[in-house]
């Protein structure tokens, strides 16, 4: 399970960073979204990976991390998701405004010299 999660986070981060460095706003926003997925999974994994245990205290069961999941990263990840989602939505609006004002979806508001761009 550790390996699967680590690979998933790694692939998401790598794709996110690659897209973030691309010149089109749409690629940038998808890159940022992938990065935030990777970050959320990373935060979640910081509470240690456990199967079949709830983050609640049950009477009669010793309240240690051996018996329950850590509720803290779950609360943190919830906050991070909400904030990340709101910021991405805001970025989307700015992206559309930029597209409308400049007439191009290049992040600098203009294509390279003589219309050359690195779209493949």
């Amino acid at each position: 399970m550790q390996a699967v999660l680590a690979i998933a986070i790694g692939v998401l981060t790598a794709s996110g960073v690659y897209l973030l460095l691309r010149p089109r706003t749409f690629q940038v926003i998808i890159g940022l979204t992938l990065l935030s997925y990777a970050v959320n999974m990373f935060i979640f994994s910081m509470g240690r990976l456990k199967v079949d245990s709830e983050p609640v205290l049950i009477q009669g069961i010793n309240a240690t991390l051996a018996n329950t999941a850590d509720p803290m990263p779950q609360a943190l990840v919830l906050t991070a998701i909400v904030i990340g989602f709101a910021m991405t939505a805001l970025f989307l609006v700015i992206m559309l405004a930029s597209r409308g004002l400049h007439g191009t979806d290049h992040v600098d508001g203009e294509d390279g010299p003589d219309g050359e761009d690195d779209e493949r």
Partner: protein
Amino acid sequence: MIAQLSALLDRLLEATMPHLIAAPILLPLLTAALMLMLEERHRRLKSVLSVVSGLAGLLVALALLRWVNAPATGTGPGSVGVYLPGNWPAPFGIVLVADRLSSMMVALTGVVAFAASIYSTSRWDRAGVHFHPLLQLQLMGLNGAFLTGDLFNLFVFFEVMLAASYGLLLHGSGKHRVRAGLHYVAINLAASALFLVGAALMYGVTGTLNMADLSTRIAELGPGDRGLVRAAGAILGVAFFAKAGAWPLNFWLVPAYSAAVSPVGAVFTLLTKLGIYTVLRLWSLFFAPDGFGEYVLTAFGLATLFTAALGLIGTQRLSHLAGFSVLISAGTLLAAIGLGQPGIWAGALYYMLSSTLAAAAFFLLIDMLERWRNAGASIAAYESADAAPFLAEDLRPMDDVNLDDDEQALYGRAIPAGVAFLGLAFLTSAVLLAGLPPLSGFIGKFAMLSALLAAPAVYPSGWIFLALMLVAGFFMLVAFSRAGIRHFWTAPDGGKPALRAVEVFPVLMLLGASLALTIGAGQAMSHAGATAKDLRNPFAYREAVMNARQRPALDSAIEVKP
């Protein structure tokens, strides 16, 4: 009489603490909420609310500063106020902490925000909707980030501050702002992702997010976990470097700050200082004992200082000058933090106050200057063409620029009051930013250098710091003199400048605050020195946070029936 009054004030402060610590966060939040309920046509009311809230925030911040420093309040000078918002003891609940550094930063925020809110009522708050609520939310984020004692809560307040700053940067819209805003939002989203990774890693290794508790636990970690904590610290550092404007993560800063409308630019000078504050606070709590990252801080600070000085000398636009001045201040501060001696830190904290006030005043001044020189347009023709103002492309003056052409007598002509004000204010802020005697910029730099040279051994990094700081000051002087000559010693296009009292007053206030800092340098410097000592030895901070008691005390608490 004065003694009685101050005793009364102290008693009042004592009675309102620790609840007063939450006021700098709650006040802007409530003001913003109230303003959102008003329609846009109640502009006048909103402006009044904004200014009143700014004044109240400033008074609260000054009260906090007094509580921290006065001998009769708290535990004497240097008392640390701790507020438990959820009434959970640390490290389980979030804490707000007001110590010397936090209260100083909140007071600085109060002064700059008050000035910006007054200035904005002149015309900029009408350039778009919801200017004042966004400004208030920005203040809430800044104050919260300065006061919080919890790493994740710091992230939340950072996001509050950033969300408001996105809105403020785009205020007024237009191509320039949207393009700068796009870059600004993208880089800050990426930096926030790094912040989250760092904070989560810290939690994963130590099991706590409370900064005081983290400080204790990091010191107790075994060598196996130390590497992970350092990795977390480095990742957090990258995130804060991006916010503080450290090279090479600062290319967004100058375009963004110069695209923002001028009161927003003034408030934005605080955002880089928040990055610096966070680096100083977290590094002094987590890594100062084992010196991890000292050289990195110094190296990046020096690189920032160097590149910003080059940028400064290479620009003609006033708003870019202001942006590069902000970067120079950030570079100086980062390098000074990395040099790590309490004496240098004291000078750096004093310099931070002075340079922030001067840069904020300069941002406001630019607006008036450009309106005068460019006859009302906020972006002059030469700026879009990237040419030097009032000069042709081969750097020869255009026609009718020479004042002697008419061969009029050059003496006995009255300088219009508006021009005199603009000129003197420009001169003062240039002297402050470049660090020339006799004003506070010089005192701050002098304090840093004398502490550097008074140390038993001066390392090469110290000598480079000294050289770069002097060179940067000289470049600043050249750049500002050049801009001053171009803007004041050429024939005006727009006649006499038409200035309004609400525009002149905030600039006077900010420059007056710098002047007060110069005259009261003894007091301010001793406060900065004590702050630096506290930071170097954060024992009192840790004790105060970990020993904060719930209210009402647990034994007298009302028993909750199941």
